[in-house]
């Protein structure tokens, strides 16, 4: 029994951390229509900056500032925000597909930097030895797991409430207005480029926060955490849950991460030993099928956006229409 609770605590913690990143993406894509193909770049920056600020001293490498954990978390989030600002200046004015590819490239660049710049990031071996907040006082790992889950849930609740307020505020309406029709928004005297940049940076800050929580949870970060597959996972969560709907974003995280984990478990428990060796490959195929199937069956997600002003996600795109739109 305690094993099940222990695993559930673990599962919920990682799901909640990922859900925060999905909320950040929902602000960018769901509400503003910015296609960020490099979620992992901001997630990873948040994680690395946090670990460097609050982490241990490393011989011959940068870091060991011993900053208090909450401050380091804020630092990590800001780091992600600054990266987004620099990147956004160059890319948010681009058309969607260009933006997707440019941000995809940023994720690769961040990973490459983390892998090679040993002085700053520890190189491929990563940074270990992070002291988790209050770990010294809570020695029982089971209790500590529950404690950390509480922290993560508190953060996700805060982010969720803040985003809900934001979405309902005039700024939120402006974001959707720009998503729907940039020209119309401009004719009303708004500055779409600036507003898009704001939303992009804000979303990145939220992803950076998730990254910080992630690195704290594992007390370890390495370039392997920055593989492009994470971007794909986060996107899958948002699309399955329903872009534009914060609750959908969270629900999608549960469903996708749950399926990802459960399919691994199911294959390892039920597949015969000879097939076990191929389980990982089969799992990827299943996940690919799940996502494509979901897009075909319910393109607007499990919990579609409620303020159904959007026309962009279910109207057919004929080449003619798309030419005008872009």
């Amino acid at each position, binding site marked *: 029994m305690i094993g099940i609770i222990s695993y559930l605590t673990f599962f919920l913690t990682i799901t909640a951390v990922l859900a925060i990143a999905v909320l950040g993406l929902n602000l960018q894509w769901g509400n503003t229509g910015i296609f960020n193909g490099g979620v992992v770049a901001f997630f990873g920056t948040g994680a690395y900056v946090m670990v460097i600020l609050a982490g241990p001293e490393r011989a011959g490498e940068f870091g060991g500032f011993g900053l208090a954990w909450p401050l380091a978390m804020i630092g990590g989030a800001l780091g992600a925000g600054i990266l987004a600002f620099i990147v956004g200046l160059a890319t948010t004015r681009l058309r969607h597909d260009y933006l997707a590819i440019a941000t995809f*490239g940023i994720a690769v660049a961040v990973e490459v930097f983390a892998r*090679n710049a040993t002085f700053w990031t520890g190189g491929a071996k990563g940074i270990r030895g992070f002291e988790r907040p209050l770990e010294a006082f809570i020695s029982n790992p089971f209790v500590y797991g529950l404690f950390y889950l509480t922290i993560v849930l508190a953060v996700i609740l805060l982010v969720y409430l803040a985003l809900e307020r934001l979405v309902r505020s005039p700024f939120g309406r402006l974001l959707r207005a720009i998503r729907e029709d940039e020209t119309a928004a401009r004719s009303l005297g708004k500055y779409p480029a600036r507003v898009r940049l704001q939303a992009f940076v804000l979303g990145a800050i939220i992803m950076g926060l998730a990254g910080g929580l992630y690195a704290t949870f594992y007390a370890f970060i390495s370039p392997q955490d920055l593989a492009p597959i994470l971007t794909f996972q986060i996107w899958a969560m948002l699309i399955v849950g329903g872009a534009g709907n914060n609750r959908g974003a969270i629900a999608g995280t549960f469903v996708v991460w749950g399926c990802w984990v459960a399919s691994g478990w199911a294959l390892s428990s039920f597949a015969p030993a000879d097939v076990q060796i191929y389980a990982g490959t089969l799992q990827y195929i299943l996940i690919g099928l799940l996502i494509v199937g979901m897009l*075909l069956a319910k393109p607007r997600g499990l919990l579609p956006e409620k303020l159904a002003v959007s026309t962009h996600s279910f109207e057919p795109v004929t080449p003619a229409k798309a030419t005008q739109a872009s």
Partner: protein
Amino acid sequence: MIQALFDGILVGSILSLGAIGLTLVMHILKFANFSHAELLSIGAYCALTFDTVLAAIAPPMATLFSPFSMSAALALAMLASAAFTGGTAIIVDQLVFRRLRNKAGALTMVFASFGVALIIRNVIGLIFGLNTQRYSDEISFATMVSADPLLLIKPDQVAILVMALMAMVALHLLLTRTTLGFALRAVAENPTLAQVNGIPLESVVRLTWIIGGGLAAIAGVLYGIDNQLSPVMGRDLVLSLFAAAIVGGLGSVSGAMFGGFIVGLASSFAILLLPAGYKPAIPFLVILVTLYIRPNGLFGETR
């Protein structure tokens, strides 16, 4: 220096072939197809299968044309594979992208293409195994063309370059000398007007996939000859292909050709300036610089 120039052109020619198909699809179907690079893998593995079969049926065909590590069987296999890959691309379109075109946004398709890429890559891994493979295990030795500055060229490299250029010329003729080519260009220029003039959209879409898939297959085979086959080769090439397409400007065939060479050269020269570990980020830097200077790519129309 001159070595980097030559190597860059060679890699560039392969990227160009892949990027041409990608740019056409992105332009006519309006979505960034992340699964395009997997067509290279399909083509490469398909040719491997045909090659093995042909060599078994008619062993003389498997004799290598010295000093090249290519055989008649492989040449035939490459053509068969181009047709097969074009067909596969149409099937994937019918199964996934066409359905989404009718009911979802372009970005849903981008995302679906991620999923398709994942499926194709792992199915290949399941069928052919995860190990790397080659068409010929012979090593083709380089000839030293010049000692200082150092220039080493392998016969295979010349052959690959020639084949890539031949494929590009063939495509150019197809686009400029045939009715189909006119229809395709018309749709690319102005889809509505093209339809008004009685050009059937769906058949142009099919043609796009055949061209894109066929060129991708040839690129995949050439890549396989130059390097090796692996189920994840598509994943490794995807960013470079996108970079080539974007640098050239979407929809521009000559742009994609040119873009491929730029990306190839940039990766090849990068090592002179940066530590080798940073090489994977080069295509991205090329994209960023291009978009910063020309947001629609070098040959793209301003919108």
